[in-house]
């Protein structure tokens, strides 16, 4: 068996769906954030795989794109965790089930 | 250099000045009979074994050196009982630590508690991989070596956190939180200080930076003294050495994150800490003092001896600060990092970029331009340090602390007021 683009893509898909499940199902807000990070990583992995195997002229663009994704992920985590802190401060919980602010 | 033909030695597998020869030989030899994957595994294993073989004994000697030097600072003899001049003391300590009972708190998170003493070795050893002992003498000459160094040293803090959290001890947790906060903060000036070099030399390879210094006949501490100072301080903060050893501040939180580790588990932490000190000294020597290169002396003396000498000098400096200075408080360290080191290194990144651009676009002669830039940068550094010294002293600290000698006026509040008014008037 030759490991090529398909295997990486399948791995990326698996990672993405795992992240998706975590993001949807976890009670804890930090857990949700972890799922989101996993999904972003899966996307990055896919992009890098394309950049490695594709013959077209997208090699560098995808890598640069991945760098932007990582930067945005860092920003997202910082803001997300700050939000979690604020939610915790006001509600004494970071359980996403119980932070139903809009329900009143 | 009479009849001895250097050319015979050059390129031979036993010429360890070029580790590529050896690895090429092994690769070719294994390719004759075995699969191709074996060669990479074997060379990798040999490389890591080589690192261990070098740093293991070095650490044992270093423990002795550090204790002896500190003892001399403190007017003591230091270890002098076990072996000649006490040289075997570290061995005796190691045996003692191995024989000691290994305690684990009942409420500790068992798995995470047992892992850190082992895991701490991973970043500790990986860093050695990119250290060039000579022109071609590094286990892995990555072209992103500088970034690799920062990334790997950044992961160590996670292990410290695991150790502190899993111990289920407040001192340990305090130590871990302080270590994490410090490490995250001081990574920024560290990155910025190295960015100066990367911008100016145009390479991210560690060996490339040394070669640049060799090529331009200049060491970076002359060109960017402030980066060197910032890197030195940030490194000593990351290494938990005084004046920034708050994460294991003995007088406050006992031993910080490794409070609950006893026996050889503590010994492993200690060994890695010492090893990290050594490797960071080596990197400071490499980045700022020219590494294995010393104005042509490297043609005559083996390069790794030069590196070792420079490392020793930096290491001595680290011991010196440790033996001399009190410890800063965590808020003082944080504000020093964010209010002093980060802006200063940031400015120097800009300075480096401007100078590099001038150098490239104007096509100046580097033999003339570099000394001028060095003088400018040294002046800038001095200015920055003096500015900081002026700004950092609060109003409270600017007044001299002093005592007044009272001869005859004994008494309470009235006498105190009288003495204070006399002292104030006497000024």
């Amino acid at each position, binding site marked *: 068996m030759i490991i090529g683009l398909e295997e990486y893509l399948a791995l990326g898909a698996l990672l993405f769906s795992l992240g998706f499940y975590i993001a949807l199902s976890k009670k804890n807000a930090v857990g949700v954030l972890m799922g989101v990070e996993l999904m972003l990583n899966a996307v990055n992995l896919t992009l890098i795989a394309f950049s490695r195997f594709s013959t077209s002229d997208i090699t560098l663009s995808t890598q640069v794109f991945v760098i932007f994704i990582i930067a945005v992920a860092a920003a997202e985590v910082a803001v997300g965790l700050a939000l979690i802190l604020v939610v915790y401060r006001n509600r004494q919980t970071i359980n996403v089930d119980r932070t139903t602010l809009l329900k009143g | 250099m009479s009849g001895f033909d250097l050319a015979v030695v050059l390129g031979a597998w036993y010429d360890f000045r070029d580790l590529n020869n050896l690895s090429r030989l092994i690769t070719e030899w294994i390719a004759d009979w075995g699969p191709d994957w074996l060669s990479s595994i074997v060379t990798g294993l040999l490389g890591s074994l080589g690192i261990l073989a070098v740093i293991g004994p070095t650490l044992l000697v270093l423990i002795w050196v550090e204790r002896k030097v500190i003892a001399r600072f403190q007017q003591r003899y230091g270890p002098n009982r076990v072996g000649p001049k006490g040289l075997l003391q570290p061995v005796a300590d190691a045996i003692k630590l191995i024989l000691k009972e290994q305690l684990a708190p009942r409420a500790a998170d068992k798995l995470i508690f047992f892992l850190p003493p082992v895991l701490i070795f991973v970043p500790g050893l990986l860093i050695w991989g990119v250290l060039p002992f000579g022109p071609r003498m590094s286990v892995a000459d990555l072209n992103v070596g500088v970034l690799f160094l920062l990334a790997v040293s950044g992961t160590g803090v996670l292990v410290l956190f695991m150790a502190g959290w899993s111990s289920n001890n407040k001192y340990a947790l305090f130590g871990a*939180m302080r270590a994490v906060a410090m490490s995250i903060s001081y990574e920024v000036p560290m990155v910025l200080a190295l960015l100066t070099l990367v911008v100016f030399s145009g390479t991210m390879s560690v060996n490339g930076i040394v070669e640049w210094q060799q090529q331009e006949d200049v060491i970076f501490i002359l060109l960017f003294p402030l980066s060197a100072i910032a890197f030195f301080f940030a490194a000593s903060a990351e290494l938990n050495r005084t004046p920034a050893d708050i994460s294991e501040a003995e007088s406050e939180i006992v031993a910080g994150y490794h409070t609950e580790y006893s026996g050889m588990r503590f010994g492993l932490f200690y060994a890695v800490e010492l090893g990290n000190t050594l490797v960071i000294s080596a990197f400071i020597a490499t980045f700022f003092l020219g590494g294995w290169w010393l104005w042509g002396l490297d043609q005559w003396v083996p390069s790794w001896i030069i590196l070792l000498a420079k490392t020793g000098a930096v290491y001595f400096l680290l011991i010196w600060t440790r033996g001399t*200075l009190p410890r800063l408080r965590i808020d003082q360290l944080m504000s020093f990092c964010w209010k002093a080191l980060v802006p200063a290194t940031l400015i120097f990144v800009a300075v480096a970029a401007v100078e590099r651009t001038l150098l490239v676009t104007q096509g100046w002669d580097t033999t003339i331009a570099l000394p001028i830039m060095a003088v400018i940068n040294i002046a800038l550094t001095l200015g920055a340090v003096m500015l900081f010294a002026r700004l950092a002293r609060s109003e409270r600290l600017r007044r001299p602390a002093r005592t007044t000698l009272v001869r005859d006026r004994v*008494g309470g509040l009235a006498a105190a007021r009288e003495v204070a008014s006399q002292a104030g008037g006497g000024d």
Partner: protein
Amino acid sequence: MTSADDTRSALSGTIETLAGDGSEPVVVNLGPQHPSTHGVFRLKVTLDGEIVQDAEMRIGYLHRSMEKLAEERTYTQNIPFTDRIDYLAAMSNNLAYCLAAEELLGVEVPPRGQAIRVLFAELQRVASHAMANGTFINDCGAWHTPLFYMFRDRERVLDMFEMTCGARLTTNYMRIGGVAFDLPDELLPTLRSFLDDMPDRIASYEDLLMENEILHARARGIGVISPEMAINSSLSGPILRATGVPWDLRKANPYCGYENYEFDIPVGEQGDCFDRFLVRMAEVKQSLRILNQLIDNIPDGPWLADVPLHARPPEGEAYARVESPRGELGFYLVSDGSPAPYRFHCRPPSLINLSALKEMSIGGTLADAIVTLGSIDIVVGEIDR
């Protein structure tokens, strides 16, 4: 999930509570075994992040009930107890107790005995302040270097003690009516060379420490107490003088002929930890001054008044006090005419100086509380007795 895991999470739930705003405070025990509590002393600090919200001390780990034990021993037999009250300044404790007993008995100490008492009390002050300053810098985080420097001087003082009375820490040297032995011949030359060396030593310590920026940053403005508050809290010794109050019992209530020696009272300005350190440094210099005046003027004659070992003082009471290195050390003795004291009470400066510890440390960080505790210079033997 097993029950062990439940225990674990229940425990971790309490211990993970650290730092941050809106979080609950965490209680940290400093001691009874802790590198910076200088003995078995326990400080329970309640922290919000690194900020001290409450500090409560728990003492008694070294309590030996000396006051009860002393009621069953004769006045002379009680002197060794006083060594063990403040084991870093045994001479001062001997002296204070003997003064109280002499007041009860109405004994007059011969001049030579008085001079020797002053000599050893001042040497003890040098030794004790060396220890206090060394450990204080250690608590500020220096890696033992200043401590070892100061130990060097203390060692020479202890050598002189050993030369005179055979003991280094628990000297048991003073007696009711004087001192136990005459000075040995080799003491004065040793003392002279010590006095010759000390000014240089002190100058080098001042070079090392006085302008140390980190020390300033750590100790100045920390643990501040106002003179009013200090007096109201019954603080005494260098802590009181650091607030600017020139109160020294050697001048205010001279004993053993202190009025014959020329010395000054160093007082601080801010009342912070650094001022206490400075005052101790300056006091060492003043002690050396006294010793310099003393060394050539020790009168001849007997060194011990004739007091029976089983002295029976008349009924009455006496409160005598000295300026020990830590502050006002007083002994309150009540006699009922028997050979043993009816009541033996020690006013321990270390304990009473801790009165304001809570007020001094609240609002600062944990590291500040440690520095403050170090600057108070406690001796747990004296706190607990």
